[in-house]
């Protein structure tokens, strides 16, 4: 790392980005109160919310103009993800958006129909987490609502499509996870091959990590807000618990982690949009740090509501269960750390 590089360190959002943030903040606040989140369990998908989100242009904003989209960058998508996470919205926003973009990047006429369906939200697409091995099944995030899954098999990037999405497997985060048996998928389209296939797949994963990192920031912030309010009214021995440093200080650490995680995710998005080869390790850094922030943040947010925080009835439980239920979908942090370490080693003498 070159510490003396003269780069700007400007984290302020452009006006248009600010508008995206506000618009989607309002949208999720109106359309996705926690009652909607609860009602969607255990599948973790709300068709009505999805339709509204599509109406907002969410499924097209990140597509290139050539594919009928608005050509928004990862940064705008990350801002939407922050608000999506804040609401823990039961829609496959991240999976669908990054996979659609990967399909558009492949620019194969064979994909036109799928892409059109992805753009209008009728055909949900998702991304396989691991390379596909013949004869083995994979748990696919959003796999229980997706009709197509994009995966890397050897040096081929393949879109697997089924008539009907496989059944939900119930899970801690109440997301539409499903086992996909790729061998039995009805249709397969080779989307890209060789280096191009690997590059598209990697890019999709990087985008997924950045969007997930942003979503976890919003999620943790929601949990913190609930607990801050709780501690401002709960008393012990005649004082508010929020005046106790044993309570207040860990809460400040959550806020501190959130502030940093948000900036790292946005910075990672900026580099993906502008100089993707310059900081290839940033998406993983964003992912790991947000996962830590969410685990620590939602754990403590639940803890400082005492016994209540351990109950399903408390809304903080929604965030606690999803902090792991979402972050684990983007891979084991230790594996990411090893990758980041390899980058450090490779850039050192």
């Amino acid at each position, binding site marked *: 790392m070159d510490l003396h590089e003269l780069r700007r360190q400007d*984290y302020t959002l452009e006006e248009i980005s600010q508008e995206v943030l506000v618009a989607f903040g309002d949208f999720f606040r109106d359309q996705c109160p926690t009652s909607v989140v609860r009602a969607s369990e255990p599948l973790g998908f709300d068709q009505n919310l999805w339709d509204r989100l599509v109406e907002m242009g969410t499924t097209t904003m990140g597509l290139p103009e050539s594919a009928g989209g608005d050509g928004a960058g990862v940064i705008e998508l990350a801002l939407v993800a922050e608000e999506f996470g804040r609401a823990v919205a039961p829609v496959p926003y991240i999976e669908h958006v990054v996979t659609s973009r990967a399909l558009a990047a492949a620019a194969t006429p064979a994909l036109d129909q799928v892409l059109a369906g992805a753009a209008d939200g009728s055909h949900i697409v998702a991304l396989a987490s691991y390379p596909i091995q013949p004869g083995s099944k994979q748990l696919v995030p959003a796999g229980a609502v997706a009709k197509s899954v994009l995966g890397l098999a050897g040096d081929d990037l393949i879109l697997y499509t089924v008539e009907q999405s496989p059944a939900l497997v119930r899970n801690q985060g109440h997301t539409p996870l499903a086992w996909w048996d790729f061998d039995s998928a009805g249709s397969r389209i080779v989307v890209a091959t060789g280096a191009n296939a690997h590059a598209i797949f990697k890019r999709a994963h990087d985008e997924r990590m950045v969007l997930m990192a942003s979503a976890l920031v919003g999620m943790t912030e929601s949990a913190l807000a609930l607990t801050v309010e709780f501690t401002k009214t709960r008393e012990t021995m005649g004082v508010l618990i929020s005046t106790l440093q044993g309570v207040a200080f860990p809460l400040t650490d959550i*806020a501190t982690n959130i502030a940093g995680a948000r900036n790292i995710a946005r910075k990672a998005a*900026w580099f993906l949009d502008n100089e993707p080869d310059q900081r290839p390790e940033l998406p993983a850094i964003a992912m790991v740090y947000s996962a830590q922030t969410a685990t620590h943040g939602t754990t403590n947010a639940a803890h400082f509501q005492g016994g209540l925080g351990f109950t399903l009835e408390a809304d903080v439980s929604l965030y606690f269960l999803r902090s792991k239920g979402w972050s684990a979908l983007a891979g084991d942090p230790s594996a990411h750390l090893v990758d*980041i370490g390899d980058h450090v080693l490779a850039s050192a003498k």
Partner: protein
Amino acid sequence: MDFALIDLDEEHRALQLEIREYLTELFTPDVFAQEHEFGDGFNKKVYEGLGARGWLYPELPATQGGADFTPLQQRIMDLELDRQDARIMMMRGTSSLPMSAVRKYMPSDMAEPILKACAQGQAVMCLGYSEPDGGSDIANAKVRAVQDGDMWTINGSKMWTTGAHVSTYTFLVTRTDPDAPKHKGITMFLVPLDTPGVTIQGIRTFSGERTNIVYYEDVQIHDRYRIGGVNDGWSVLHGPLDAEHSIGVDMSDGLTDLSIGAGFCKVLAGSIVEVAEWANKTTGPDGRSMAEDTRVRERLGAALVEYEAGINTPGPMGRVRASDALVKQSAILQDLLGPAGLLPMDEEGSIGNGDTEYAHRFAQGTGTYGGTVEVFRTIIAQHVLGLPKASYPGSKVFLAGKKKS
């Protein structure tokens, strides 16, 4: 948002080169050796050399001894200084806090020569806030100043007055009304340290940084050295304290560090690079490169994540985060190096420049000076989370005063 490389035009590139060359001339090996041995955070030759060109506080107008630098020119300067040794520049930062108070409160005929001397590197100022009985509660300062006509008599002692032994003045917090509510009985002075009755004694820290205890025994100071109103010291102090806590700084041009702990992160970065270079050229007991060892890879990855956390967390939160990152990661990185990681830079078989060995010792102080991380967490609790203030017996009352009377 913008993280792009700044494309310097010819004029700026020339300035960058000029600065780089001049700094290379100034920062000779004996300068580093001296800092290593004494830990002054200061060097007369460097400060006067920079000051001669208006480059010590280049953001100041030339008429005030600066160089009219724009924020971009300033950033170029700071990055070039970082390439040398940030430690030596410590007193520059320390002086800049009282300088703003002097500029604001002292009559200009008094202030101007003082500020000019500072800008020219001929005077530095230190902070006389903390006392032996406790530094977190600055408003509880006990050093007494008593007025008699135009003169004040000062008695008591200050601890941790870093740089007092190289400074011309100290920015002193005194108690002038022990019976008033504690924030309303404080007066600030700029005390010339060569005044009779001032005794300075060195204290060594395990980072190598020197600090001091300063005794004031019937020190006579003219009222002209008072800064701000009598018993109005708290509002005078607020400006510099807020600056130290980086409150209300405009950063929209992207030319300042976001985190006030960014400097701590540079020390962590030095250690990360050192460990990576060591791993790349070291063979482990099993005959494989240490760079292939999963422990090394994972811990270096974790250290870089923490580095990013430190520099990407804004303001006062960044100070806490960067300190935590450095404290934890420096210890872990040192473990990776094994026994050789314990050797300081000039010992046989020490690793790299001993940056990791140093980082672990240096880290500890970062949680304490400039206000401890607990004091900062208190600020964050109130100002970021909006949590209510705790009420302690000494929140409003000057307890030492009460006990005495």
